[in-house]
């Protein structure tokens, strides 16, 4: 009991000893801001909230907080903080001015902050600068330029061209009729329901974007990029972060490094590149171009053609309405259900082409080649490799003019063939059926099998 009393007493004494006086002073001023005039706000060390009204009137409210060892000191200091509302040739300027608080001015052990609450005409342009505080602007139907540092910026229900510069804080733009530009560093950027174009530059932070009415440009560094529902052309660059694009109604270009690229349901053409990661696309409306370095490429369901180049990563393409041109190095290529022409080239890995509707050309080295053309009218097939087998399955009722050649291995055909010229195990010339399309099979140190379709 005695101990408890002692602790309580100690706490009370300590609290009393820690007592620090805090003063709050309110500021309020209303002034006219006629149509066509702009509002400039220069503030720091506190939040700024901007609301709008139909009236051509500006209302500024400030909550000024000061604390010091003595109440009198805090009161005097608070009294010296000025919120200036001045008319300028272009409109009205609201400026927060703090007394100097360095050691030479006599102000010590003081602390302070000012939060501004502004109500302005909804059609007046806004230029706002703030540091060390959050900024919120809502329902502004005019252009805004917000320059903030060390604080979150939120822009809601805007109309007009908006520009936001920020550092060390997140930026959120929700609903804007007009173009938006956001330049941020070290913070997340979120933008949704923008009817105009959207341009985002961000370093060291994720970007999340949805429902963009026109063009989209994102330059990101070291952060994830997530894009959904874009009507205009999208151009995205990133590094060290994954990029995901879903439901784009126009063309998409993604340049990434050291991060995944994923594109889904892109109506327009797509140009995708990355390194040291993966590219994945599906349900694409038009042509797809992929450039990868040390990157695997996977794609399915493309309305146009696919042109892919990569190295040290598997290429797997399926259900392509157009052609597929794939150049890879040191990696496997798998292509199936390709309606158009196929060209595939790699080394030190196998190439498999299944159900190809167009001409097939394969150039490989040190890797097996398997080709199965689609049944129907014949298309030329040219397969070449070395140190690995070639297997081609001939569709039923297809006619080919066959030329086959290998070294240090045999040619075997399960399909009936009319042979002409010299007959040897390493070389063959002849016709399958009544001939027609060229079937050219070239190998070195690897066998050739001509198989019958089941």
């Amino acid at each position, binding site marked *: 009991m005695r101990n408890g009393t002692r602790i309580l007493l100690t706490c009370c004494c300590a609290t009393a000893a820690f007592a620090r006086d805090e003063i709050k002073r309110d500021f309020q001023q209303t002034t006219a801001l006629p149509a066509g005039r702009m509002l400039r706000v220069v503030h720091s060390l*506190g939040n700024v909230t901007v609301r709008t009204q139909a009236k051509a009137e500006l209302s500024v409210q400030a909550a000024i907080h000061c604390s010091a060892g003595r109440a009198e000191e805090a009161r005097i200091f608070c009294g010296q903080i000025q919120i200036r509302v001045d008319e300028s040739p272009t409109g009205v300027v609201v400026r927060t001015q703090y007394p100097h608080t360095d050691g030479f001015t006599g102000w010590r052990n003081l*602390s302070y902050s000012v939060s501004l609450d502004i109500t302005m005409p909804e059609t007046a342009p806004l230029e706002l600068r703030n540091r*060390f505080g959050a900024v919120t602007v809502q329902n502004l139907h005019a252009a805004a330029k917000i320059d903030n540092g060390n604080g979150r910026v939120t822009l809601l229900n805007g109309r007009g061209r908006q520009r936001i510069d920020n550092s060390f804080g997140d930026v959120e733009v929700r609903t804007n009729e007009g173009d938006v530009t956001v330049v941020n560093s070290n913070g997340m950027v979120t933008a949704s329901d923008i009817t105009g174009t959207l341009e985002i530059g961000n370093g060291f932070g994720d970007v999340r974007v949805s429902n963009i009415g026109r063009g989209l440009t994102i330059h990101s560094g070291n952060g994830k990029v997530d894009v959904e529902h874009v009507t205009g052309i999208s151009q995205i660059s990133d590094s060290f972060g994954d990029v995901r694009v879903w439901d784009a109604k126009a063309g998409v270009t993604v340049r990434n490094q050291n991060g995944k690229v994923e594109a889904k349901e892109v109506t327009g053409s797509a140009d995708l590149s990355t390194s040291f990661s993966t590219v994945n696309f599906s349900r694409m409306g038009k042509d797809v171009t992929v450039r990868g370095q040390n990157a695997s490429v996977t794609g399915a369901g493309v309305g146009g053609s696919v042109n892919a180049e990569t190295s040290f990563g598997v290429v797997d393409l399926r259900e392509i309405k157009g052609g597929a041109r794939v150049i890879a190095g040191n990696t496997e290529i798998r292509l199936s259900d390709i309606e158009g022409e196929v060209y595939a080239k790699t080394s030190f890995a196998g190439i498999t082409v299944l159900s190809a509707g167009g001409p097939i050309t394969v150039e490989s080295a040190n890797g097996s080649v398997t080709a199965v053309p689609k049944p129907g009218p014949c298309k030329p097939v040219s397969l070449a490799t070395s140190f690995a087998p070639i297997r081609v399955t001939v569709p039923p009722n297809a006619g080919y003019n066959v030329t086959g050649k290998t070294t240090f291995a045999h040619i075997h055909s399960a399909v009936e063939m009319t042979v002409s010229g010299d007959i040897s195990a390493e070389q063959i010339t002849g016709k399958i059926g009544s001939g027609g399309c060229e079937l050219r099979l070239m190998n070195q140190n690897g066998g050739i099998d001509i198989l019958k379709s089941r």
Partner: protein
Amino acid sequence: MIFQCSDLERALRTPELLPEMRAHAARCETCGRQLYLWTEISRLAPELHREWESPFLWERIRSALAAEASSRRPSPAWRWMLAAAAVALFAVWLARPWQSGSARDLLTDAALQEVQQTEAAYTHSIDRLSALAAPGLQQSPSPVAAVYREKLVLLDSAIADLKANAENNRYNGYLQAELASLYRDKQKTLRDWLTQNAKRN
């Protein structure tokens, strides 16, 4: 003496009172039941008695007593720290610096003390992480290392800027929160680099 049930324990310790107690128990049902229980315990307890060898028991008791004695020795530093912690907790609770809103725009002394302690802990952690990360980070020619270096430079510059501002506005809660956020970011960046570097190696 007017015997009551509350006198039972005293009577059990005093043989002179036993006859009177027994007489009372014969008339009183409550006391009779209690006396019966005590008598049964006294009868059965000796049968339950067991003995076994325990050569180290006394040594353990002695060392435990010695340890307890030393922990009871007055320790001004320890007491001061306990008191400081109690005061800080109490003052922080009173101040409730975690509450948002204008009421907490400015910190109290106790809250500032808490913040400074947290900052010191972060600085300590960051120093240790920096010492671990520095050799690999500075020497690595990889683009990833370049990105981490760039981010750390950016964070260091922002921390210096914030500290300069907080120097003359120490009780500003926003500045202190931002500073803490930057320290967190720097700590995370160093940790991420170390994790990534470990994976690569």
